[in-house]
C-alpha cells in the first residue's frame, strides 16, 4: 500500500475508534436528505427498476446504475457544506435566500 492509502486507512481507523465516523455519516445523511438528494436518487432508482423489470433487477444492477450519478450530484450538493463560526456543519443557503438587511 502506498503512503496515501496508508494514511487514509489510519485516519479511517481513528475515525471509527472515536465514533466520529458514524457521527459524520449521520450528519452527511441528514444534509443529503435535507437538500433533496436522497429523493432524487430514489426516483432514479425507480426508473432503473422500471426499465429493467422488477423480477430481474438486482441490487448490483442498481448500484452500478446509480453510483456514478449519486456520487456526482452528491458532491455538488455537499460542496455547499461549510463550517460556520461555531464549528457546526451547515449547508450554505442558495444565493436568492440570503438575508438582505
Amino acid at each position: 500500500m502506498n503512503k496515501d492509502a496508508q494514511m487514509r486507512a489510519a485516519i479511517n481507523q481513528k475515525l471509527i475508534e472515536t465514533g466520529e465516523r458514524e457521527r459524520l455519516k449521520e450528519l452527511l445523511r441528514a444534509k443529503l436528505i435535507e437538500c433533496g438528494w436522497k429523493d432524487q436518487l430514489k426516483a432514479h432508482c425507480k426508473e432503473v427498476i422500471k426499465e429493467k423489470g422488477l423480477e430481474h433487477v438486482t441490487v448490483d444492477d442498481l448500484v452500478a446504475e446509480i453510483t456514478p450519478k449519486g456520487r456526482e450530484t452528491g458532491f455538488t450538493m455537499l460542496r455547499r457544506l461549510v463550517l460556520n463560526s461555531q464549528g457546526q456543519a451547515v449547508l450554505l443557503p442558495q444565493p436568492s435566500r440570503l438575508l438582505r438587511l
Partner: protein
Amino acid sequence: MAQVRETSLPSGSGARWSSGGGGGASPEEAVEKAGKMEEEAAGATKASWGQEAEEMKLEPLQERKPAPEENLTWSSSGGDEKVLPSIPPRCHSSSSPVCPRRKPRPRPQPRARSRCLPGLSPHPASCRPPLPPPPPPPPAQRPRAWRGSRRRSRPGSRPQTRRSCSGYLDGSRDPGGLGDWLLEVEFGQGPTGCSHVESFKVGKNWQKNLRLIYQRFVWSGTPETRKRKAKSCICHVCSTHMNRLHSCLSCVFFGCFTEKHIHRHAETKQHHLAVDLYHGVIYCFMCKDYVYDKDIEQIAKETKEKILRFLTSTSTDVSHQQFMTSGIEDKQSICETKEQEPKLVKPKKKRRKKSVYTVGLRGLINLGNTCFMNCIVQALTHIPLLKDFFLSDKHKCIMTSPSLCLVCEMSSLFHAMYSGSRTPHIPYKLLHLIWIHAEHLAGYRQQDAHEFLIAILDVLHRHSKDDSGGQETNNPNCCNCIIDQIFTGGLQSDVTCQTCHSVSTTIDPCWDISLDLPGSCATFDSQNPERADSTVSRDDHIPGIPSLTDCLQWFTRPEHLGSSAKIKCNSCQSYQESTKQLTMKKLPIVACFHLKRFEHVGKQRRKINTFISFPLELDMTPFLASTKESRMKEGQPPTDCVPNENKYSLFAVINHHGTLESGHYTSFIRQQKDQWFSCDDAIITKATIEDLLYSEGYLLFYHKQGLEKD
C-alpha cells in the same frame, strides 16, 4: 375542520403504475399471469403489465376515482392518549375498526404506506413459488381497518422515511429504498429469504454468531468494539476498508464486494452468505442478490436498538439525540407493520405525481387551554428563514443554564416538527419555559394568542442577545438576533404641527401591526373608508366588506389629534394642534397583522366578529413612509416601478372561535406554494383556499416574497 375536494387527480397516465393498463383482469387471472412472469425471461413491457395486473389484484377498489386529499387527516386519538404507536399491526385484519374516530373512506390512504419491508425478498425469482393471495376481505371494512391501523401502528409515511428508514444506523432494511415498494407487488408470504439462508439457520448457535458479527463489525457502539472494528474491518485480500466490505457469515473473513474478493472466498470455501458491513444486509452468493430473512432482520433490529439505546444515553448533543430517537421509533413501527401484511400495502406511485409535502406538519397536543400556544408554534415553525436557522443549528446558547434557554428549546422544537414524524408533538417543555420567563402567561387559563406571540418573541430575543458584545442590551435597533432580523420592522410616527407644519418624526421598532376594525369604537365605521388610493391593486376587495387593506389604510391615515391633545411644537415653542400619521419605515421579513377583535371599553369587553377579507398576496408599498413622502412631494403616488420587495405572501392565519370568555384557537398553515392545512391542536387536515379566505382572521402572517423557499 375543512374537508377537501381534490382539485386535480393524480395523473395516472404518465405514472409508472397506471391502473388502467391492466384491463379487467380478475385477481385469479392476475395471479396466474404474474406467476408465469416469474418463470419467463420477461421483457420490460410484459413485466409492467404483470405488475399492473398484480396491482389490480391487490387493489380491488382501484377502478374508483381516487379519493380526494381529505385522506390526509391524521390525528391522535384525543389529546391525552399516548402518542406513540401502540396498536398491534395485526389489528387491520380484525373485523372491528380500531380507530373509531375515522370516517370510513372508499379507499385506503395511500400515504400511510410504510416503506421498509425487511421480511420479504425483493427478488421474486429467488427460490420461492408464488402463493395465491388470500381472498381480499370485504372492501368496505378492510380499507377502514387497514387505514386505521396504518395510522396508528405506523405513524410514519413517505416523507417521514427520509429520516426514519435511514435512521441513525442506516436503513439496513432498505438499501437504497428498494425493499419497500418492490414488496408491494409481492405475494403475501411467510418468512422469506432463500433456501441457503434457511440452511444457514439450522446451524448451531447461528443467532449468537450473527449477533456477534452485528455487534462487533456492523453497528459497533462501544469504544472497544469500535476499536476492534477499526483494526480488523479491512479486506483480507486488498486491505481496503471501502468498496462495500462484506463479512462472511460462516467464518472470519472480510472481503470487499467491488473487487469480488468476497465472491472468491464464497466460491472457494462454499460459504454462501455474507453480510454487508455498512448496512447489515445479507447477500447470498447462490441467489446472487441480497436476501431479507425475517428472523435475521429481527436480530439486526434488536442489535441496533441496543446500540442506539446505549448511544443516545451517552450522547449529549440534543439535536443528535432527537434525531436518533426519532429514527428508532419510526423505524420500529414501520418495519413491524410491513412484515405482517405486505399484500395489503397499496402502491403509492399513483399518488406520487401529486405528492403533498407534509414534512413539518405535526399536530400539537393541547396541554390544557394551550391552543393559543399551539397556533403560534405552528406559525413560527413555518417561517422558512427561521426554519433554516434552527435546522442548521445556528443557535449558540448564551444562557448560563442551557436548559432554561428558550431558543435552545425552539431549536429542538423545530427538529421535532421537521423530523418527519407524524405523531403529534407534546410541547410541554416549551410551555414550562414560557411560564418561567413570561409569568403573566403562567397557568392554565385561556390566553391571548397575540399576547403570547409578543411574549415569546421577546423571550427569544432576550435569550439571543450577545452578552459579551458592547451593545446596548435594551436597544432592539442594535440587535441582530434572528428574531430581529425576521420580525422587526420600523414604524414611523410623524407629528405635524398644524401651525408651522414642521414635522417631528420618531421611528419605533415593532414586531407586529395591530389594526383597529370597523365596528370598534376606534374606527371608521361611520365614515366611508378611504378609498382614495385606487391605484393600489386590491386583492382583498369585496364590495361592502372591509378588507385588510382598508384596515391598513385606516392605520396609516393622518389623524387629527384635536384641541384636547395639543403637542408642544419645538419650532413654535408652544402647544399646538397637530396631526399624527403612522407609516412603515422599514418592512420586516415576516409581517404579522393583529386584528384587534378584543375590545376593552372601560369595564366592557367584547369580541368583534366582523369579517375582514384578507388577500393571499399583499403589497405594502402604499403604506410605506417613502411612498407617503413622495406622494406629498409630487402629489401622486409613484406609478413607476413598484419594487417587488414590498410584496408579501400569506403563509399562516390564526383564528379565534368562540367568545371572549371561552374560545378556541386554530390555524391555517401554508405548505409549499398553495397547499393549505388546518391545524387544530393535534388534528391536521387539508384545507381549501376558500376555507382559509372565509375564515375570520385574527393574526395574519405574511412573508416577504423572494425570501421564501419554494
